């Protein structure tokens, strides 16, 4: 922790770039966001699936995340239906993961000598992924800036070895570092750039559009059908024989199946935002998504990336 405090970043994207550089320097593969709608960075197969099996893994990436129920038409200072998470997953979790994490805060301009950083108990559980872990929420001067988790189970499988997962809520963290009170006022690119853009210039309108669609317009019948279709397709992919008749090779399609699981999960979130899911049904839907996640995890651990012998 002998690093000297980094200079203050000036924009949202600079914070992201510094995190990318920091984790690249510390040996992570810098991956790109997953190209599907997800509720959190954890859903990216680089986390969910790669936390399974015994193959070492180290990845970091930005993941756009959607939580339809959190939409506030761009008016709320820090609530958004679309936001960014920064996600790091290292397997096995290195012994110095806490120090590495603190180094990343330093890299984005949080001076460890002036701030109060705390690790406050917060166990993580994802009922839709059948996953849980123990860890903390990390507080900086009383504000939660990250989630720090040692994965114990994913898709019903014990994680052996254990992955360390770090999740940064980028907007909130950046607002704090940049001293901005409303997310829409936050500089997105360099405030001195010829075309200086604020977060609001980029996302205010989309927040309005999606809030309206999520809450009032999305066609629930279509969504219900999408859910059923994704569920059926996931099951069908899993049930397909492993041997590919065309090539004769054994190809377990864990990732395509998992895409359908992600799709079902997001459709469920949309239905939830539309208010058409009752309390009792809610549990049932979550259980159905979890069942898919479990199928995909079962499939993945039979693949080479999942640690099975080739």
């Amino acid at each position, binding site marked *: *922790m002998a690093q000297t405090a980094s200079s203050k970043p000036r924009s949202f994207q600079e914070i992201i770039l510094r995190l990318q550089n920091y984790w690249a320097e510390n040996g992570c593969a810098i991956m790109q966001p997953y190209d599907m709608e997800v509720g959190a960075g954890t859903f990216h197969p680089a986390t969910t699936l790669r936390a399974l099996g015994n193959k070492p893994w180290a990845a970091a990436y930005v993941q756009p995340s959607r939580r339809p129920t959190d939409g506030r038409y761009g008016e709320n*200072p*820090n609530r958004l239906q679309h936001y960014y998470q920064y996600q790091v997953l290292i397997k*096995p*979790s*290195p*012994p110095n993961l*806490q120090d590495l994490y603190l180094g990343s805060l330093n890299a984005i301009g949080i001076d*460890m*000598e*002036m*701030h*109060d*950083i*705390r*690790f*406050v*108990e917060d*166990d993580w559980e994802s009922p839709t992924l059948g996953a849980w*872990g*123990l*860890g*903390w929420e990390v507080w*900086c*001067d*009383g*504000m939660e800036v990250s989630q720090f988790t*040692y994965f*114990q189970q994913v898709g019903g499988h014990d*994680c*052996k*070895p*254990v992955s*360390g997962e770090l999740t940064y809520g980028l907007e909130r963290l950046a607002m*704090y570092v940049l001293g901005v*009170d409303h997310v829409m006022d936050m500089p997105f690119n360099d405030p001195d750039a010829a075309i200086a853009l604020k977060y609001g210039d980029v996302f205010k309108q989309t927040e309005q559009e999606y809030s309206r669609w999520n809450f009032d317009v999305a066609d629930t019948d279509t969504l219900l059908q999408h859910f059923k279709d994704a569920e059926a397709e996931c099951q069908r992919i899993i049930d397909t024989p492993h041997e590919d008749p065309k090539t004769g090779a054994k190809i377990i399609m864990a990732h395509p199946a998992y895409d359908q699981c992600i799709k079902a999960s997001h459709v469920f979130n949309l239905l939830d935002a539309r208010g058409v899911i*009752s*309390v*009792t049904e809610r549990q049932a839907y979550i259980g159905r998504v979890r069942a898919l996640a479990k199928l995909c995890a079962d499939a993945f651990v039979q693949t080479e990336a999942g640690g099975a012998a080739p």
Partner: protein
Amino acid sequence: MADLLLELFSEEIPARMQARAAADLKKLVTDALVDAGITYADAGALSTPRRLCLTIDGLLDKSPDLTEERKGPRVDAPEQALNGFLRGVGLTKDQLEIRDDKKGQTYYAVMQKPGRTASEILAEVLPQIIRNFPWPKSMRWGSSSLRWVRPLHSILCILSAEDGAEIVDFEIDGIESANLTAGHRFLAPQWFSVKSFAQYQTELKSAFVMLDSEERAEHIWEDAKNMAFAAGLELVEDSALLAEVAGLVEWPVVLMGDIAPDFMNLPPEVLITSMREHQKFFSVKNAKTGQIEKFITVANRTTADNGATILAGNQKVLFARLSDAKFFWENDLRIAKAGMDVWADKLTNVTFHNKLGTQAERIDRIAKLARELAPIVGADADLAAKAAKLAKADLSSEMVGEFAKLQGLMGRYYAAEAGLPDEIGAASEEHYSPLGPTDTVPSAPVSVAVAMADKLDTLTSFWAIDEKPTGSKDPFALRRAALGVIRLILENSVRVDLLKWLGAQTLAGGGGAVDLDNLLSFFHDRLKVYLKDAGIKHDVIDACLAMPRNDDFSLLVNRARALQGFRDSADGENLLQGFKRANNILTAEEKKDGVFYELDPEAKLAEDDAEKALFSALDTAQPLLDGAIKAEDFTAAMAALAALRAPIDGFFEHVQVNADSEILRRNRLCLLNRIRSVMNSVAAFEKIEG
């Protein structure tokens, strides 16, 4: 003699688990040492967010030498038996002794077990204890097989004596015990070596670690109190929060900050709850106005700017949190002022229990019961029904959605804002009470009506769908509800024959039949526990439960209190013996003769003075007892019984019941029966042990 110092240094241990873990560590290690023959003078356990620490002073250096003897087979036993024995004890034949036994010559193995050093024993037991530590929740990390609450990084374990310190050598999952520890994560992260507990504690303090959670708590409390006092304000006490915060820091630095004026008209409970739940802040109030004006936060470090940056950050977070709270409050007020109809409507969509319908349906039932209960508890019926209708409306409010523990209290604020009578607001706040055996019991009649109605609906509803508590499982807190009803009745001297009254009501969601007799015995079980805590013995309670109108708990308890008082007096004790004697004789003779001696005994057949005196005492007592029982004055009834003690004693002393004359004998048995029935009109004395 040596002293043990053990420190288990890990990533941050959840605050709520630290104290228990330290105590467990102490117990497990000291128990294991004592089992192995190592005694000690004193032991202590300490904890911080990153360390569990155990000190044991005055350990024996070695466990005592032991001689163990084992009896083997007889000398003439088959070879196989001897070989088996030799294998078992690990000796050869020539090492055995031969002794004369009752059955002949027998082999004996005599083994000297030399004592082991404390260090050896510790090196053996500590890894087991650490591997099997009883954390409420534990985890693995990296590629380890060890489970700990969070990753364990190092183990300091030394035995120190006057001539120096030695490391107790062991290894767990790649972590080797050593004599090293590190200071505060940010302020003094260097590792240093440790020779003794005293040096460890002193050096840790200069490395910004206060080892003792009580010292940290005290430090926080004193600083916080002084800061509040210096500002002319008062710290709001919160011992649970204090313990938690003391478990989040190794080097507590107390900082006081301002609450923006924007939030001054929020109810103080909202400020306190929001700051406590989200930020773990203490509240600082103006003693005159009751308003919360400042907050106190506890940082884990000093900084060059004396915490200014930290405080500014915390203030900013608080502003966002309280903005949310204010937003909820203002939205809620709009709905409250419009009469709360929106909330009531919302509850029609909220399921209370899948077999018992919605919250709205439940509230309708409660309102009906409250209306019927109102005259019994001295409340206005319309007001009680209206209060019941609104008592749970705040469950739909945004504030209660955010802070469930503010339920009821917010209802009171909203009722006031809606211009409703204070009784309605009070019922909203109080109707959940009492929540346990020591919680305050509401006394305002409208609150009592709603509180009783709420609990009785819960009980009868779950009885109707046969979801009663079993063993330790009571997911709907029905025991608590029943105790609540009992306390509401007793502490407000409510008079109601509950079973009869419930039988006349429309009960329970789903329309299922309610087994009221079964429910009554459930109440009786709760009542027994409650009265036992109040010093009334179980047999006395049984003696009262066996009397008529045992569903009128006020009557029941009056009787029980008077009876227990009487039972504890000398008169009571003697009279009880007299009763038992009468009852035993009577029961035996009735059994023998196959008849019941239930006729009135005739005074004119009395021969002995003592017998005559008993007749006249019973004649005097009878009307007094009848009057007292009618007036439900059980103290007077017991006094009337007390007057029978001497005549009954005299009767048994001087009179022989089984007289030669059959007429006299029968009359005397009938006289015993009269004693029994007179006493049983007060309580079922045969249930009392003695």
